[in-house]
């Protein structure tokens, strides 16, 4: 099965468009829907295909069965998606994204939490990185709207989260059985657990089914209970927006003054280039393709790339790093029934070095300089029996014995640590390699800093304390030398008030180009340690408001 072929679709430009949105992931879908709802003429250009919903079970099977490369689940890779990773650390870009209607929400986990207040003031709070030019209060109403749009299941039981007025639109998923085992140990140590806000239906919502427990959320939810942005693409189309798939934007062209984008030039599968003109252009194609497109759009008015008078386009690339620890218990732990999380702890977010004290001990303090930590209690520790069976060299009774021996007693904790923005972590163009349209490919230069390493170590220290208290044996740790990226691309067109240091202003409009906005985690100034998509969605809704005002 390859990407759905809709070769007969009309991919010619619209005569008149108020807004051209580049990218049909969560940011682009929400911007398009919000503006179309208000009567604006919207055209969305998406590089990848539309995926048929009814093929999701087959994609899930590819994800479980070992014959199929992970990239084939959503048809990633090949000439279209070529890239270079020339930095100190290898970056597996194509595992970190999906191109198509719905974007990377097709393969995401679906955790949606608000940034903490401190994330907007990292310089003021910790003396590192920079402050955002907006704060939590500016985003607060948009966070609420984003939760309603996506259908977030959650509870207001997180004492460390920023304030909220409204309850979540859906009740939280109940804690798992293994959460109850962790809860006993955490109580003894004084570590607070709470629910996880999930963009996943705990009951029917928005004409989508409740979760039915396929257990394969990442990378495929066959039931559609997990939110993915194709939902808002369809809503936008119902409001009159046009979505052109398999239409990668090649470059943006400005007028003679260089102050306005005139058109987005895009290619179609028949090899023809088209120009989509629009009064306003919104880039929503992620933290790697946005800077790449700006750099590809260099001109005499913008010799270093469009909207790049600051030189910040592509710089300050940030990721969240995974920190984890797992082991086995002498009891059954009931893992791998579902593919999502039901408990986490933000206790060490704003005070990562704190000691804790419970009914029988505690986590020791650390006086190191640390960043925020988000801790997770996993529901899918250890092997999935079906995946293990498909890889095994044993059959029959031997296989069953092996599965029984391996499955059933694992526990694990995960966690996220956000790295600091550093100029040298960046996306550039690799002019020695080209994609299927002859454009230079993105080059990711990535490494992590000492503070981030220390924070991962601190997360491991807390995780080890909990596992030890739980009585886990065979404990193994994913620390700074084994960590990997969480596939969150942030920072590459940062927001700011100073045009010499940032790419977009607090209204998400580029400083240099009057009708060009960016809705993406690429505008993040710092990464925080929570999953970014709710903030992406909130920023997209804010961006739509500002675009609408200008129109």
């Amino acid at each position, binding site marked *: 099965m390859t990407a759905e072929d809709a070769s007969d679709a009309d991919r010619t430009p619209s005569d008149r468009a108020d807004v051209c949105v580049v990218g049909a992931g969560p940011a682009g879908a929400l911007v398009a829907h919000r503006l179309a709802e208000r009567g604006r003429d919207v055209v969305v250009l998406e590089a990848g295909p539309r995926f048929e919903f009814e093929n999701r079970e087959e994609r899930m099977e590819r994800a479980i*069965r070992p014959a199929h490369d992970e990239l084939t689940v959503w048809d990633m890779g090949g000439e279209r998606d070529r890239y270079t990773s020339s930095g100190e650390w290898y970056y597996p870009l194509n595992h970190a994204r999906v191109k198509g209607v719905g974007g990377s929400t097709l393969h995401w986990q679906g955790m949606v939490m608000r940034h903490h207040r401190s994330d907007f003031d990292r310089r003021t709070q910790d003396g590192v990185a920079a402050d955002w030019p907006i704060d939590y209060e500016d985003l607060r109403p948009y966070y609420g709207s984003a939760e309603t749009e996506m259908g977030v299941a959650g509870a207001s039981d997180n004492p460390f989260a920023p304030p909220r007025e409204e309850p979540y639109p859906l009740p939280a998923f109940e804690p798992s*059985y293994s959460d109850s085992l962790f809860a006993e140990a955490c109580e003894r140590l004084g570590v607070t657990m709470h629910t996880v806000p999930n963009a996943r239906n*705990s009951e029917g919502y928005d004409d989508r089914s409740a979760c039915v427990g396929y257990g394969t959320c990442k990378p495929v939810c066959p039931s559609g209970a997990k939110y993915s942005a194709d939902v808002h693409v369809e809503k936008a189309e119902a409001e009159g927006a046009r979505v052109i798939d398999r239409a990668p934007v090649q470059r943006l062209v400005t007028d003679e003054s260089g102050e306005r984008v005139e058109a987005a030039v895009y290619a179609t599968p028949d090899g023809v280039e088209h120009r989509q003109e629009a009064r306003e252009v919104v880039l929503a194609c992620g933290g790697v393709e946005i800077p790449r497109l700006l750099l590809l759009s260099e001109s005499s008015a913008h010799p270093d790339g469009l909207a790049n008078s600051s030189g910040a386009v592509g710089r300050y690339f940030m990721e969240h790093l995974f920190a984890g620890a797992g082991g086995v218990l002498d009891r059954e732990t009931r893992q791998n029934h579902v593919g999502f999380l039901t408990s986490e702890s933000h206790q060490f977010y704003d005070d990562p070095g704190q000691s804790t004290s419970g009914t029988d001990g505690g986590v020791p303090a650390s006086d190191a300089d640390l960043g925020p930590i988000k801790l997770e209690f996993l529901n899918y520790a250890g092997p999935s029996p079906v995946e293990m069976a498909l890889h095994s060299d044993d059959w029959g*009774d031997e*296989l069953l014995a092996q599965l029984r021996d391996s499955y059933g007693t694992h526990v694990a904790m995960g966690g996220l640590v956000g790295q600091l923005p550093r100029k040298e972590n960046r996306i550039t163009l690799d002019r020695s390699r080209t994609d299927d349209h002859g454009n230079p490919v993105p080059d990711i230069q990535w490494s992590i800093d000492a503070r981030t390493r220390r924070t991962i170590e601190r997360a491991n220290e807390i995780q080890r304390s909990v596992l030890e208290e739980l009585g886990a044996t065979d404990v193994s740790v994913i620390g700074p030398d084994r960590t990997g990226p969480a596939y969150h691309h942030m920072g590459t067109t940062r927001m700011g008030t100073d045009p010499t240091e940032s790419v977009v202003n607090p209204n998400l409009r580029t400083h240099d180009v009057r009708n060009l906005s960016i809705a993406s985690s690429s505008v993040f100034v710092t990464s925080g340690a929570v999953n970014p998509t709710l903030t992406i969605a909130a920023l997209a809704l804010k961006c739509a408001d500002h675009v609408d005002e200008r129109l």
Partner: protein
Amino acid sequence: MELTRRDALAALSGAGIVVGGTASALRRNPISFEEQSTSLPSGEEVMETLVAVADLVYPSAISNVREFVVGYAGTRMAERAAYRSGVRDAVADLDSYTAVHFDAERFAGLDASDRSVLLDQLGVRTADPSPEGTITQRVRYYLVNELLYALYASPTGGELVGIENPQGHPGGPTSYRQGPPE
């Protein structure tokens, strides 16, 4: 533990082949291929081969294998053209190999110990499955792994291991909250 038609249905609905269906949607008999071929196996022969492989790769605690395999693989062959041609070609190649290396015309005609020896000799145990690979890889993919997927993504297969809602099976969002059975 007996494999039921419900298991076959569950495995198929997990694969998106039977949606919202009932056990009556399952096949009770092997399919007949539309195109007759003297060189390729018939629907009945493909099914016999799958049952013969299941006899090796399924644990002895499982009963009612034939009905399960006919219901699962038969329906899958009827509904998914790529599987139908892939499994048929794999069985044809497996039978050719059998004819050359063993004193039998068909793999399904060998006794259990010869079947096991043959698959080991062919390297199927350690092969990387592939739908477009060598005969060994295709036997692993279309026969062995197809059957293992059907079993261990079904509630009965999962329960044998201790997980009543295995990955790939839409067994609802409640079992993860429950403790182990008393």
